[in-house]
């Protein structure tokens, strides 16, 4: 069961890297989103895909009645989803602001913080 997931994760990572190598920030952003999803799948697969029983303990029991799916990767993924979602929201606002203020979404043209004609330091008094 793991093998198709592994292929899928590889596909996600490849697409994400390809997008992140772009100079346009919107594509980089999409790459980051894809990467986050690939990582979530990776966490899920690392918890082993064994059973399709949800890990919920029925009313009146202290332990689950049967073997269930591993709940921990699900908790990890939920955390990772929340975090990557909030980062995506922040980066979206940031890229949008950059587009408004700097007038471009091309990373090569964003040289405000590091101007190309930065003067060299003086060599003497």
């Amino acid at each position: 069961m793991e093998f198709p997931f592994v292929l899928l994760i590889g596909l996600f990572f490849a697409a994400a890297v390809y997008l992140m190598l772009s100079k346009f920030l919107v594509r980089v952003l999409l790459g980051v989103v894809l990467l986050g999803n690939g990582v979530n799948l990776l966490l899920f697969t690392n918890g082993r895909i064994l059973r399709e029983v949800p890990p919920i303990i029925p009313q009146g029991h202290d332990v689950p009645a049967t073997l269930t799916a591993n709940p921990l990767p699900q908790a990890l993924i939920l955390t990772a989803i929340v975090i990557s979602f909030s980062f995506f929201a922040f980066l979206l606002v940031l890229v949008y602001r950059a587009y408004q203020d700097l007038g471009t979404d091309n990373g090569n043209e964003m040289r405000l913080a590091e101007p190309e004609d930065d003067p060299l330091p003086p060599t003497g008094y």
Partner: protein
Amino acid sequence: MAANPADLSAALVLTPVPAADWLVVLPPAWCILAGAVLLMLRKSVRLQALIAIPALAGLVVIDALLLAHVAANGPVTMVMGRWLPPFGIAFTADLTGVLFALAGAVVALAGGVHALADIDASGRRYGFYPFLLLLMAGVSGAFLTGDIFNLYVWFEVLLIASFGLITLGSEPRQIDGAIKYAFLNLIATTLFLVTTGYLYGIFGTLNMADIAAKAAAGRAELPLMTLATLYFVAFGMKAAAFPVNFWLPASYHTPRVVVSALFAGLLTKVGIYALLRTLVMLFPVEREELSFLIVLVGVATMLLGALGALGQSDIRRLIGYVVISGIGVMLAGLSLGSPGGIGGAIFYALHSMVVMTALYMAAGLAGRLAGSFDLNSLGGLYGRSALFSALSLVLFFAAAGLPPFSGFWPKVMVAKAAIDIGAWWLAAAVLATGFLTTIALGRVFALAYWRPAPMALPVQTMPAGALLPLVLLTALTVGFGLFPERLMALVQHAAQGLADPRAYIGSVFPEGK
């Protein structure tokens, strides 16, 4: 409720918790509470500093108490929701973590006081102090947690807070810097998460004490080298080590100077702490295998950082390169692996937290007094304020690692540890870095402080509130430079605790599982 009562003592803590254990979780909880209150009150600009600075002082007190407790009794653990480890998330404070946390708290307090003069009302309305407290929650949590996924979560907490701080004011330059900072740091933490996913797949646990024990037991058949290498890349990126350091000089000079100061003091050191925790405590054998790579990266980082500092005309960017160069020394210490090397790395990290923060503060004050951050137009600062110049000179020497300031001793420890194993070239690189840094910072002093002002200086008075934290931090570096014995003993103890984590594991699993 329980129909078939199970044996709860196997899964839950059933004995009462001593009150002193609460010190372990208190630093992040305290920061979150204070940050939340500040965020609720962000309309009332006057109250912000009034609440934040006592809260940060309280954090220093808590961390100091925790340090005293840990130094006396060894590592302390508290689990969340009374679930026993490895099921529950554990917070474990050992000497390394507490020393970092205390230094971070001191730096944050200094930054909070410095911000009184540096952050204007609009900056406070946008939430400087709440973000600072949340940043400290993330930083303290990262230093004190005993669970590797929880470490990731605290990384993200501090990253989100740092995003808030770096865009404070939203000037176009800041947006530009923030984009590079945000994307590259996000990729680094994602790599951290990937590695943690693999680690979970291999060990089936996320508790660091448990991992350390299991790794030691089953080293032969587990692919631990992959994990160690991936962690090295991920945390190396966070720490701004050489081939992946470019986000730092692209962004650290763009925000308010006090924000740069806090970042320089806190963020890269969290990366170094995580490297120490993973490579020294969890994967020591793999670190040994990787040591040649680590030392190459370390030497490249320190030399290129120092050379980068020589080539800058903006003093804030120059200090950014000095920060990077210091990371190289820490990596060199890490690569050696001996108690002297690790102890030197910890000592250097603590020194660097204090001194880099103070350097940025000094740069901010210089810029404010002279009206420019450019070495080509700076000048006449000595005539402006002799006290400030003296403080700056002390900090420059401390950053370059000259005696009798705090940067000297860790460099001695690292160089000594290098010579002990015959790596004279590493010791030479550390010395050459100190030499180049002295030139770079000495030139700043000659040009900006001694040289007569090239243009008429704007009439600006020195704000006393901004000078106070600078005096405090400088006093720390002089104090630990003149009397290093106590701290040196502590860091050596901390390094032993990392290299031989039996006490750490024993604190998480008391019955010696």
